[in-house]
């Protein structure tokens, strides 16, 4: 579904990604693991072209999404980002009401009948497992929610625009274990509807929810395989060392 081919990325002169070849399958959760600064978040952000926002970034190579190169100059980035949603490390709801947060992406497209919006808000919040927490506070500011609730509202906001792929950049690292657990369960539930790629520092999280795991080190993809294989019987020594906590 998504395929990166010999992807290099430079911040100025510093090479942050050194030729990544990776294929992501539809309907799977792919976990990206590796020590801080290894390029996993950078790689994730190349997939919806969020790195375009940073000055002095040069990217070579291809990223194919449904067999189209998204780095083709003719690519409609706005359309691309509607198809490939993103959840960030820090919960980042807009300083609006919960309801307005969820419908934000939909309203960009133009006006829709109120009933339709209401319905999408409800299903999105239900899918994000936060409906019960916020159903009475839809018109309250999203900033008044707890961190875990905010993050799930942010996920609902992404679900509302019905993307095909969801990129998650350490979505639980700023949250407490209970909230993290809720989000993990929710992601697991959503697996059959969406293709997901999750960056995580939490090894247990990767092993619990992902189908495949990619191990990054120093801007290179060291190993990419079924999660079970990576955690139980990695072929690379570096992978084994990282997973067993010898470095990173």
């Amino acid at each position: 579904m998504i395929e990166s081919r010999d992807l290099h990325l430079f911040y100025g002169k510093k090479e942050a990604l050194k030729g990544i070849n990776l294929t992501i399958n539809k309907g799977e959760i792919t976990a990206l693991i590796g020590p801080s600064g290894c390029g996993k978040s950078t790689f994730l952000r190349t997939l919806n072209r969020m790195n375009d926002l940073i000055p002095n970034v040069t990217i070579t190579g291809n990223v194919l999404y449904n067999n189209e190169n998204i780095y083709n100059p003719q690519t409609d980035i706005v359309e691309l980002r509607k198809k490939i949603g993103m959840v960030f490390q820090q919960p980042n709801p807009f300083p609006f009401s919960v309801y307005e947060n969820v419908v934000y992406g939909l309203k960009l497209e133009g006006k829709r009948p109120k009933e339709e919006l209401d319905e999408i808000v409800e299903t999105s919040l239900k899918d994000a497992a936060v409906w019960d927490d916020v159903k009475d506070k839809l018109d309250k500011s999203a900033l008044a929610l707890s961190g875990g609730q905010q993050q799930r509202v942010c996920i609902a906001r992404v679900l509302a625009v019905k993307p095909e792929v969801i990129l998650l950049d350490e979505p639980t690292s700023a949250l407490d274990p209970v909230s993290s657990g809720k989000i993990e369960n929710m992601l697991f539930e959503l697996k059959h509807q969406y293709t997901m790629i999750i960056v995580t520092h939490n090894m247990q999280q990767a092993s619990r929810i992902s189908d495949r795991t990619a191990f990054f080190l120093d801007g290179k993809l060291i190993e990419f395989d079924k999660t079970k294989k990576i955690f139980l019987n990695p072929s690379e020594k570096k992978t084994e060392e990282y997973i067993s906590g010898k470095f990173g």
Partner: protein
Amino acid sequence: MEDIQRRLLQKSKKARLEQIGKTVSFICILFIVVVVAAIFYFVMSKGLATFVKDGVNFFDFLFGTEWSPGTVGADGKPLTGALPMIVGSFLVTLLSAIVATPFAIGAAVFMTEISPKIGKKILQPVIELLVGIPSVVYGFVGLTVVVPVVRRTFGGSGFGILAGTFVLFVMILPTVTSMTVDALTAVPRHYREASLALGATRWQTTYKVVLRAAIPGILTAVVFGMARAFGEALAIQMVIGNAAIMPASLITPASTLTSILTMGIGNTIMGTLENNVLWSLAMLLLLMSLFFNILIRIIGKKGEFKS
């Protein structure tokens, strides 16, 4: 043993230095507070003397439309109606703020969202330069350029609220713009990222998220500009015509609290009604600027970003 005891009980050199530092900075802040309090006391006592000593009715002062403190009206009371100046001050302030705000927002959006590079390198220094130009220069340009243009385009003498609005608009624009720029740059980056990642264009992100999140900051900027406009004396005095009559239109000569103050304060004798009533105008100005300050505080508090 004794040595340790002495060291613990005696103040060390460092501790004494700290004490001195605290005292010095406290004296400095005390000085400022005393000066401000003294100004308030002086202006208030002088300004209130009009009503207490000279027996002018406060409401006659606020709502009276005839201003000629030296002469006595038909009812035997001096003509101390300040309404023409109050109206003049508020009109030029509001009009210039209304005209300046869209320009300031547009310029600020360009500088922060559209072209931060040009914004930082070229526009920022230009705006800082504009802030630093003395108001007499603005007034002079107003007198030689704006007034004739108004005269030719709209008729009349050219002096009046309209010319004053133009001059004040140019004067407050840089302040309002640079404060709006601050308000927009204070909007956390992650709001923009979240919006873009949902498939919003940059323009949608700017007006649906950035501008909306920055509303309190922008309001603060506008109120700050209004406070400047309200208190500006010299430039406005040069172009408004200084006729203490109710403004009949935007192009007939009018006056503001500040312009009447600067015109009159040197020509009256301390302690007389003519002088005291000018102090009453000053008191109004002071109260208004206090009001603007409080307003800025309130809006600013509402708009703080929780990260």
